[in-house]
């Protein structure tokens, strides 16, 4: 029995069951959700182990061979994404126990939480274009609702704006699927890949690609498509912010882009330099623009939101570089940013939980009162900044290595120089929340469950940093190779041994 469908089936079942369980007990719901996300984590690890043996596991839904049925194409990159998703989901879920205690309608939260998990898992492992769209919509709609979960004015506003922009992207994606279907008459990614190589790089090809890039850029919140993110991510409850910033936009925007660009459309720097330069350009613009905006923020979470936009730029730059190091760096960065930004949003959650405000001018002196939170923040921030030996450093390292290797020294200089912006804005929070002297009377430590969740991520940040060599060998490298295989993907999907039994 293959475990591949379980990745999305388990959270789906949980989501469907939670409304029933929710009537019984609130804590039970949390326990179920946490256990499920932990099971997912274990499964994800198992999935990594699976992909070490075969480079591609094709799972045929309903036993229909591709391109007839929907297949799940589970390769190293998917496995990697699944792992990252499960990590963030788990920590967020654990964190939620006390945090969501503030909110009404808790079981709805966990339902949506599981749904968004299922959606992301689905995107990460599916091998079918339309299926991808469906999962994307599941995840997206859940996220819209989660953003507005507090139903305060700002949250609703943020959610609405997010939804408008997100749906523009989603519908553009759908339109592109329609056109692509009209041309290729198939929806299976591998099949599309086969077909499209016979089309050649016609204007049609580029139009479709442009539309997809447009759609995914909105989802990934790259400048100038980013404007929803600084509204939406801070508005959501902290674990959700952590999830959204940590992994959501990467699955919806980055993973999809990478998968389609590399594996389906078979582009690489050699045959489509312009396209890759666009990626780099958008990436750099994101880094700089959002970084500068973040400098000017006075809201804990909003600053982090801008930071996310800025960091996504690095990932895009990494993919835009397009060689092994660049892509590996980008993938590494996905992990690094997921852990780091997830952690940062969790710290924002515990700060908000205890103080009730996110205004940087009002917060002060929490460094001693909430030392676990403060140190978690530091680890997360330093990882994002790229301070060795934390994971963010190695991610950045490979991106820069790739840039230099590709002969793009200017890019390396700019990209790495802009990390100073990251440092500047993250220091702003560190200073005004944790280090500045001030009177925040009677602040207690963050609740135990929150601290556990944060420490979990801190440990991961440290471990992944220290063990980066292992990660490169077993996780990142294979994932990068999976992408860099290009259109070989199609042969693997059609020809590889499938693990159905």
């Amino acid at each position, binding site marked *: 029995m293959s475990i591949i469908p379980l990745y999305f089936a388990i959270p789906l079942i949980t989501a469907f069951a939670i409304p029933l369980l929710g009537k019984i007990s609130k804590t039970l719901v949390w326990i179920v959700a946490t256990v499920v996300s932990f099971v997912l984590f274990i499964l994800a690890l198992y999935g990594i182990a699976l992909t070490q043996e075969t480079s591609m596991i094709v799972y045929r839904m309903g036993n229909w061979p591709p391109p007839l049925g929907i297949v799940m194409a589970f390769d190293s990159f998917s496995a990697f994404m699944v792992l990252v998703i499960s990590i963030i989901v788990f920590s967020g879920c654990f964190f939620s126990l006390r945090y969501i205690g503030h909110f009404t309608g808790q079981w709805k939260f966990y339902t949506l939480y599981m749904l968004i998990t299922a959606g992301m898992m689905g995107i990460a492992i599916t091998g079918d274009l339309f299926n991808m769209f469906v999962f994307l*919509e599941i995840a997206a709609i859940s996220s819209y609702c989660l953003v507005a979960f507090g139903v305060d004015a*700002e949250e609703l506003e943020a959610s609405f704006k997010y939804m408008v922009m997100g749906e523009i992207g989603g*519908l553009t994606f759908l*339109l592109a699927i329609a056109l692509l279907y009209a041309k290729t008459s198939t929806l299976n990614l591998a099949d599309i890949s086969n077909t499209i190589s016979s089309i050649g790089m016609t204007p049609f090809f580029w139009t479709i690609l442009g539309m997809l890039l447009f759609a995914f850029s909105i989802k990934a919140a790259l400048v100038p498509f980013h404007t929803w993110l600084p509204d939406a991510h801070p508005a959501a409850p902290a674990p959700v912010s952590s999830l959204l910033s940590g992994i959501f936009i990467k699955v919806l925007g980055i993973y999809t882009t990478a998968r389609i660009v590399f594996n389906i459309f078979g582009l690489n720097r050699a045959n489509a330099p312009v396209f890759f330069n666009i990626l780099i350009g958008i990436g750099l613009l994101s880094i700089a623009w959002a970084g500068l905006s973040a400098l000017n923020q006075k809201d804990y979470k*909003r600053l982090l939101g801008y930071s996310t936009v800025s960091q996504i730029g690095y990932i895009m730059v990494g993919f835009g570089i397009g060689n092994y190091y660049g892509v590996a760096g980008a993938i590494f960065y996905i992990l690094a940013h997921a852990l780091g930004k997830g952690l940062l949003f969790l710290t924002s959650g515990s700060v908000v939980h205890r103080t009730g405000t996110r205004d940087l001018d009002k917060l002060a002196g929490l460094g001693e009162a909430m030392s676990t939170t403060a140190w978690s923040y530091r680890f997360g921030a330093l990882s994002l900044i790229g301070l060795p030996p934390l994971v963010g450093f190695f991610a950045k390292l490979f991106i820069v290595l790739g840039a230099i290797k590709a002969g793009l020294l200017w890019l390396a200089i700019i990209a790495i120089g802009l990390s100073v912006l990251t440092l500047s804005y993250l220091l702003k929070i560190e200073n005004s929340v944790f280090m500045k002297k001030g009177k925040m009377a009677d602040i207690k430590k963050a609740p135990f469950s929150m601290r556990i969740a944060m420490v979990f991520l801190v440990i991961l940040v440290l471990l992944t940093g220290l063990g980066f060599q292992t990660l490169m060998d077993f996780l990142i490298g294979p994932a990068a190779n999976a992408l860099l295989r290009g259109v070989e993907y199609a042969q693997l999907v059609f020809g590889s041994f499938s693990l159905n039994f």
Partner: protein
Amino acid sequence: MTIFVFCIALFLIGLYAIVTKRNLIKIIIGFALIEYSVNLLFALIGFRRGALAPIITKVHSAHNFVDPIPQALVLTAIVIALGTTAVMLAIALRIYERYKTFDIAKIKKLKG
């Protein structure tokens, strides 16, 4: 081909509504229009001249059907559209309650 272009026109009208209209309901209507246009385009793509709807009435009849796949996809898309519209409306409703207006230009607490 012209008929496809019409769909695109509908798409652009929907976008137009989103970008120029300041009323939330109009924006949602714009989305609905876009969804229609895309669904329609899908359905039109799968059409074959002179073919029948893909429903087998006799076991061994001639298989001259229109493409069933776009229909299946559109079915899904319609439902998704319904879901998004419902959520959007719910948000709009709550926004109206909070802001007492549908004017998007006045709903800008979040900026900077």
